[in-house]
């Protein structure tokens, strides 16, 4: 990788039949950045994200993630990124410890590494007491925090978070963002989608997708200036309503 960019996207496009879900988007994400990827439902965020994590082949355009080409090395991308979504997090019928061990194995960690990571994780999250509980019985906020930590088990260079805080209570939502800050502070890049516009303000830079295109991309401060808006919510409403 020649540049300081961990994601480099040029004219990336995905079409389904005659419907263009992602229409020639271009952007880059720097190492250690918290990058907010916003857009209305159906704007093409999920489709774009699927191409970036190596599970959907683009129709045209270029993209590299963590130094790997999305066409040539999608499997290498999967090994070098973390991914967490609101919908699929962990196995409800496995215990906290079993989930960590399972994912550690998937990511190819040794037994010794898994053991070390498990202890470290449980301590950081304060979950030692419930290590034997089924994940299904945990409150949503804990599940999400655990799930984020599991996505970081193999120390990926970048982690993709797809609406990680949907439906989570306001206090846990903030604790979650403190985890994000800490992770970014330690050098891991964060790529995050959210429908909470106050969370958009926590990002270093934000892009907003409308109908398959990136219509705005800058720091929250500059976007607010550009759109003469008081909050990111106003920026979003102005853009997405046209």
């Amino acid at each position, binding site marked *: 990788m020649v540049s300081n960019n961990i994601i480099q996207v040029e004219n990336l496009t995905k079409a389904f039949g005659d419907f263009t879900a992602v229409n020639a988007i271009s952007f880059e994400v720097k190492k250690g950045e918290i990058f907010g990827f916003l857009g*209305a439902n159906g704007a093409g965020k999920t489709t774009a994200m699927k191409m970036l994590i190596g599970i959907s082949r683009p129709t045209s355009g270029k993209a590299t993630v963590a130094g790997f080409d999305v066409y040539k090395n999608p499997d290498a991308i999967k090994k070098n990124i973390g991914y967490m979504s609101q919908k699929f997090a962990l196995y409800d019928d496995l215990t906290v410890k079993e989930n960590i061990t399972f994912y550690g194995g998937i990511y190819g960690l040794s037994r010794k590494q898994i053991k070390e990571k498990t202890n470290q994780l449980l301590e950081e999250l304060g979950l030692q007491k419930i290590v034997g509980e089924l994940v299904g019985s945990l409150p949503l906020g804990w599940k999400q925090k655990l799930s984020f930590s599991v996505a970081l088990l193999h120390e990926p260079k970048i982690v993709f978070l797809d609406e990680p805080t949907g*439906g989570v*209570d306001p206090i846990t939502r903030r604790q979650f963002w403190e985890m994000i800050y800490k992770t970014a502070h330690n050098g891991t890049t964060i790529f995050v989608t959210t429908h909470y*516009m106050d969370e958009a303000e926590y990002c270093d830079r934000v892009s907003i997708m409308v109908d398959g295109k990136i219509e705005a991309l800058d720091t929250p401060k500059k976007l607010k200036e550009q759109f003469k808006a008081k909050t990111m919510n106003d920026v979003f409403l102005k853009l997405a309503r046209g």
Partner: protein
Amino acid sequence: MGISVKHISKSYKKVNALKGISFEVKPGELFGLIGPDGAGKTTLFRILTTLLFADQGTASVSGYDVVKDYKSIRNSVGYMPGRFSLYQDLTVAENLEFFATIFGTTVKENYDLIKDIYIQIEPFKNRRAGKLSGGMKQKLALSCALIHKPKVLFLDEPTTGVDPVSRKEFWDMLKRLQQTGITILVSTPYMDEAALCDRIALIQDGKILQIDTPQGIVKHYPKKIFNVQADNMYELINLLKDYAHQYSVYPFGEFVHYSDKRADFNTADLQSYLTEKGLKDIAIETTKATIEDTFMELAK
């Protein structure tokens, strides 16, 4: 004759979902239940729509008891559950017709009530419900919940996972519906939507923390609150949390909301502490508590 809830409790095997909650919703009121996942909102909805028995307490909906008069309630309320519950294999038009027929009415008879909403999905009326986008499913579900002209409408997290634009459109629709005299009980985890209700109840862990108007609820916040900004957000949060006199520290968009334990708190003290620790571009100014501040304070 809106909704009356008295000392309702409900437990599942391990969880006390509702712990003796009481409140009243006036006829024609738009009342919001505001609380996170797991607060007990859905359990309450299921009890009020006669789908679940409470362990203790009583409740009535437009004058009907939820146990004795369950049939009358089912005829006179509309319910939009949190999970999409229409028939995925029926088309948009078929779903609507099905619900109208079940309630012994026709789409034509009450079309006026849903026109505003249905018109937006009418171009797709021959599409199967399962193939609709999230926003369109939501509009169809609302149309189906309204087609028998209910007196009371129950909406369980209608906007969860929905983008800000569609959320705003949905709330505009609710406001127009309210004008027709329908009583609306709506739940949401989004605190900004709370401000759009006539009154709200903040709910957490099966208990009601507070009931008031959106303007009134913020008066329950006990402290002065300050917006703090600096050049490094991560450092700022950590430093504020380490500050001996801090009462609460929560990131709020571009600011951190800070309140102090001391009654005679002077912003200059905090300013010099942060400067000493190496932060730059520090700004501290008073601000007003929001519904979210109040929620977090009461939920502590």
